[in-house]
Structures are given as structure tokens and as C-alpha cells.
């Protein structure tokens, strides 16, 4: 009951003119970046994060959340109209969305994707309102050893979702940790990995690394692929027919529930849940032969699962401080930039802030539905912006964005360096997701580790002797096994459908 009251007061807070404008701008900016081929939600948050630093923390996070779910929505536009999935989680949307577009029903497919995403988003948020405070309350019992075990296991599970060799994921994760160590030591105050270079004692700004790895790398990849304007199918009618709605009702519901419950757990990315939903719909359908040739259920289910997974991921992020996907890891970095630490204490100390952010997501989902359906034509037009103009603009915003975080030119050089490294990592199949996750979680994990060993006077057994941490270890091991099995299956399906390996996070 308390949650509902807090939520209502959050909604009242969001409905002030300025906050409402922030939600609208965030959702539209996210959709704008999401529809641009090749740029996904992680790149969207990374590129636009520096631009939000002028706002106060709650407005900044409201905008980032809007950018996140706006970008998730925008990804399906290119998938359906141009057969280009912005990220692997949009691949299932291409399987039936593009055939629908070719039949002149692209508008209906986009409409169903928008309605499905909206319903899934709202269901996910209801789950967030109900479960996040309970989880946060339980998490108050956690001490440093429990947190360390939780983060360690979450990382191991998340390493799996990148779909690359585990040993390479481990190495990249360790590299991410090392980058987070640069600067003043947490307990002694002595500079680490500084080598007499003064600027390194301030640490390496994680946003610059993220901007480099995602935005700059993406432009280099685009240059190599020589991205050209791709002909897209014409959109006739945006609103789905009554029959479309009837056919999509149950797939949306099933996709939302599946996506939400798996999305809470780390290791079940939106790619896994959207493929699971697609296969499930094909199995339960009376006309499985329609799938692949333009079945509206094949768009409704996966798109709902995709969005519900994104909403579900906010539960571990807000209540435990654990990101369950790369865009949420960047969002966690955004929280840190604003001086906030997601976790149970956030609910206690900044309750008003948390509920305003959650309320903004409700409003944001409504705005996305109301604005995006009529704007589908405009978004589709934007995908025609030539890469020759888009590339330089992305690079300039990236460099100036990296500079604006600490007003330091060193951060711009870091962004360029990591842009080149990101491109080479992509070429030689070294996953960047573990690097990002460990870079963001590094300081938190190190603090928990040091505190745990201070409690136990240096005894490592503290991590398995305490009942909660032991339980967390056992649950995590079970989740890891299930996630490994599902990962293998999803990898096989992606190769079946696209003929190539893709990053599955």
C-alpha cells in the first residue's frame, strides 16, 4: 500500500511542466538514437549521458531512463522496416516484421510492436513497484560479504551472456577491473597505477571509456561497412486492425510475463527472452506455417518480451545495485556520476527520488505510445540520414561529451583510444561487455571485498560461512547453469536465422 502512495506522489512530481518536458525529450531522444541503424540503447545512453549532467539528479535519471526505453522502442523500427536489427534482441522482430512490411503492413507491425512494448512496459513497472521495495527491504540484511558474492556471481553469469569464449570474457572483465583501479586507492589513499603521470591520479573517467567503446567504435564500424541508405518499405496504415489486436492479445501477455520474470535475473538478456517468446508463439500457434511469412504474433510476443525484460532489469538495479544488462550498467554509471548508489539504501535515503524515477517510467511509456504511433513515418524518414553526415556528428558529440564530464582534454584522448581499441576488440572477437560491467562495478566490489576481509581478519571463508552468502552462491550457480543452457540455444537460433554470430547482450 505504501508503494502505491509513494508512486502517486511520484506521479504528481513528474507531472510538473519541466519534469514532463524532460520525460518527453528523453523518450524522443532515445527513440531518435534507437532508430539510427547500428546504434542501440547502450550507445544512446553513453552518447547522451554527458548532456544530462546539467540537470539535477532526479531529472537527469528520468531523462536517462527515457532514453533507455525510447532506444529499446526505436530499435524495432529499423528491424521491421529495413530488416536491420539495431541489436540482437530485435532479430526476432525482423523475422515476421519485415515480411509484414513487404506486404505493405509495416505500419500495423510497428503499431503492434508499440502497443506490445507499452503493455509489457506497464506490466514490468507494476512488477517493479511491487517487488523492488520488498527486495530492497530484504537486501538491508546483506553485509559486505553478501554483496561481494552477489556481484561476483552476477558478473560470472553476465559474462556468459556476451556469447563469446568464457576465458576471453574473464580476461576482459579483469581488464575492466584494472581500469577501475587507476587513481587514488580506496583504503590507503595512495595513488595506484599512476606511474608518475599526474592526470592518472584522478582515475580514468568511465564515461569516456564507454563513449569510446560504443560511439567511436560504432562510427569506425560504419565506415568499414560503408553504410549506405537502404531502401525501406512504405508505411501505409499505422494503426493495427481489430483482427491484429485480437491475434496479438495473448502473445503480448505471454511475452510480457516471460520477459519480466526472466529479466529480473542477471544472465537472461532481452535477446534470450525475445527468441524464447518467438519460439513459444510458433509452438502454441494453430498456424505455425505463417511464422516467417508475416505473422503478427511473431512481432507481438518478442517485442513485448524485449520490453518487459528491460523493465524487469530495473528491479535488481534499483534494489540491489546490480545491472542485469549492459545498458543498465551504463545507467548505473550515470547514478554514480550523480553521486547516488543504487541499492537498498537508495530506497531508504532517497525514497522520493526513486519513486519519481519509477513514476516517470509510467508516464514515459504512455508518451512513447501516444507520440510514437503518429510519428512512425517521421522515425522511418530519419533512418535515411546518410552515414556521411551522421558519423561526423556522432564523433563530435562523443568528443565534446567526453570533455564535458570533467572539463578535461585527457578524457577526450581516452575516448579516442578506447574507440580504436573497441574496434580491434570487435575485429578479434574480444567481448567488451564484461569490461564495461567490471569497470562500473569494480569500485563497489573492491570496497565490499576489503570490508569483508576486515570483518573476518583476512579469512576468505567468510564468503561461504554466512548463510545468506552461501544461499546466494547456490542460487547463482543454478541460475548460471540455466542461463548457459538457454544461451547455447539462443546462439544456435541466431545462427539459424541470420547466418552469423552476434553479441547477444
Amino acid at each position: 500500500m505504501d508503494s502505491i502512495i509513494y508512486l502517486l506522489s511520484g506521479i504528481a512530481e513528474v507531472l510538473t511542466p519541466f519534469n514532463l518536458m524532460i520525460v518527453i525529450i528523453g523518450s524522443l531522444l532515445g527513440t531518435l538514437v534507437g532508430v539510427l541503424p547500428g546504434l542501440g540503447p547502450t550507445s544512446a545512453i553513453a552518447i547522451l549521458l554527458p548532456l544530462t549532467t546539467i540537470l539535477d539528479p532526479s531529472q537527469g535519471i528520468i531523462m536517462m531512463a527515457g532514453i533507455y526505453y525510447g532506444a529499446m522502442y526505436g530499435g524495432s523500427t529499423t528491424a521491421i522496416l529495413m530488416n536491420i536489427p539495431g541489436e540482437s534482441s530485435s532479430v526476432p522482430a525482423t523475422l515476421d516484421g519485415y515480411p509484414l512490411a513487404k506486404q505493405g503492413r509495416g505500419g500495423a507491425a510497428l503499431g503492434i510492436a508499440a502497443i506490445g512494448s507499452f503493455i509489457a512496459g506497464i506490466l514490468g513497472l507494476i512488477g517493479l513497484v511491487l517487488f523492488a521495495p520488498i527486495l530492497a527491504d530484504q537486501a538491508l540484511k546483506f553485509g559486505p560479504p553478501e554483496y561481494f558474492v552477489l556481484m561476483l556471481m552476477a558478473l560470472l553469469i553476465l559474462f556468459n551472456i556476451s556469447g563469446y569464449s568464457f576465458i576471453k570474457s574473464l580476461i576482459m572483465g579483469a581488464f575492466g577491473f584494472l581500469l577501475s583501479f587507476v587513481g587514488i586507492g580506496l583504503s590507503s589513499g595512495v595513488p595506484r597505477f599512476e606511474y608518475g603521470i599526474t592526470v592518472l591520479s584522478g582515475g580514468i573517467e568511465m564515461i569516456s571509456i564507454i563513449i569510446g567503446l560504443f560511439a567511436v567504435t560504432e562510427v569506425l564500424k560504419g565506415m568499414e561497412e560503408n553504410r549506405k541508405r537502404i531502401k525501406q518499405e512504405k508505411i501505409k496504415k499505422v494503426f493495427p486492425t481489430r483482427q491484429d489486436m485480437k491475434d496479438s492479445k495473448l502473445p503480448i501477455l505471454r511475452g510480457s510475463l516471460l520477459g519480466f520474470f526472466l529479466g529480473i535475473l542477471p544472465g537472461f538478456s532481452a535477446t534470450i527472452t525475445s527468441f524464447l517468446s518467438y519460439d513459444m508463439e510458433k509452438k502454441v500457434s494453430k498456424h505455425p506455417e505463417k511464422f516467417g511469412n508475416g505473422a503478427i504474433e511473431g512481432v507481438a510476443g518478442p517485442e513485448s518480451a524485449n520490453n518487459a525484460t528491460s523493465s524487469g532489469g530495473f528491479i535488481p538495479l534499483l534494489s540491489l545495485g546490480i545491472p542485469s544488462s549492459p545498458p543498465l550498467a551504463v545507467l548505473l554509471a550515470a547514478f554514480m556520476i550523480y553521486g547516488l548508489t543504487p541499492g537498498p539504501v537508495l530506497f531508504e535515503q532517497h525514497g522520493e527520488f526513486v519513486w519519481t524515477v519509477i513514476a516517470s517510467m509510467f508516464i514515459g511509456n504512455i508518451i512513447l505510445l501516444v507520440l510514437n504511433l503518429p510519428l512512425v513515418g517521421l522515425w522511418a524518414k530519419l533512418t535515411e540520414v546518410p552515414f556521411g553526415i551522421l558519423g561526423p556528428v556522432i564523433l563530435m558529440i562523443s568528443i565534446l561529451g567526453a570533455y564535458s564530464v570533467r572539463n578535461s582534454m585527457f578524457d577526450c584522448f581516452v575516448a579516442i583510444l578506447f574507440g580504436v581499441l573497441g574496434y580491434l576488440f570487435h575485429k578479434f572477437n574480444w567481448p567488451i561487455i564484461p569490461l564495461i560491467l567490471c569497470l562500473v562495478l569494480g569500485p563497489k566490489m573492491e570496497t565490499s571485498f576489503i570490508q569483508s576481509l576486515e570483518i573476518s581478519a583476512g579469512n576468505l571463508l567468510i564468503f561461504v560461512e554466512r548463510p545468506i552468502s552461501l544461499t546466494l552462491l547456490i542460487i547463482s550457480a543454478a541460475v548460471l547453469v540455466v542461463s548457459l543452457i538457454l544461451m547455447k540455444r539462443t546462439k544456435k537460433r541466431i545462427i539459424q536465422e541470420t547466418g552469423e554470430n552476434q553479441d547477444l547482450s
Partner: protein
Amino acid sequence: MKLLLKCVHKSGAIVTILIGMLSVVEARKLYPYGMNLLTGDHAFPGLIGILLIIAGVFLLFSKGNSNDNQPLPKGKVKYSMIFTIIVLLLYCYVMEYVGYLISTFLAIICLMQLIGKYRLVFSAFTAALFTAGLYYLFIVLLKTPLPSGYFHF
């Protein structure tokens, strides 16, 4: 191709081992500031360093995957990419001396020539438009103190 794959794979392993060793050396340097072997600022770098060395050795003796090596770009594309990076580096370096306006305008023209291969007049017009737009966004709206250089603009 097989030789290149092997070479990249082994180089990755060796770099991993070297970074691991660097981390262990740093941990040793920090050890006197810690409380005991596992408590202090040295502990995590030490553990991560050891992990990197072990993982690097493991990688050194493992077989690379054929997917692990996609061909690097050649010819014009390769040079465009290299020059784009050079333009970005020069942009960051020069901005402190000539200021935001001139450096950004020139950098966008160069990047549009490299990435889009547009005509100079069109590039200059677009560059002027985006320089003004980014000026408004970063300097007016976000109040970012971007360098104004010798010319004070």
C-alpha cells in the same frame, strides 16, 4: 590466414600475461600500505593480476576460434579510418590553442570529406551549421567551459 589467427591469438595471450604481471608488481608496491595479505589496496590488483597471468597462459596454449579473426579493412577504407582517428587526435590537441569554433568547424569539414566524401562547399555549410548547433548545446545550454584558444572564441 591460419598463421595470422595464431599470431593474433598468441599476441592477445602474451599481452594479457604482461598486464597481469604489471598488476602484480603494482600490488607488491602497495603491499606495505595494507593491513595484511588480503586486506588493503593491494589485494584486488594482486588477485586480478594473478587471474590475468593464469588466464593468459591458458589462452596461450589453447586453440583460437576461426571466428576470432575478421579481416582488417584494406585500401581506401583503411586510410579513411586512420585519417579519421588522426583528425580526432589533432582536433583535441589543436582546440586548446585555436579554440572551439575554428577547430570544430575544420574538424567537421575533414570528417565529412573522409566519411561522406561530400563536396567542399556542402561540407563547409554543414560544418558551420553543426558547429553553431553544438556551440549552443555545449557552451550555451550545458555551460561547458570549452577552450577558447588564442583568439578567445
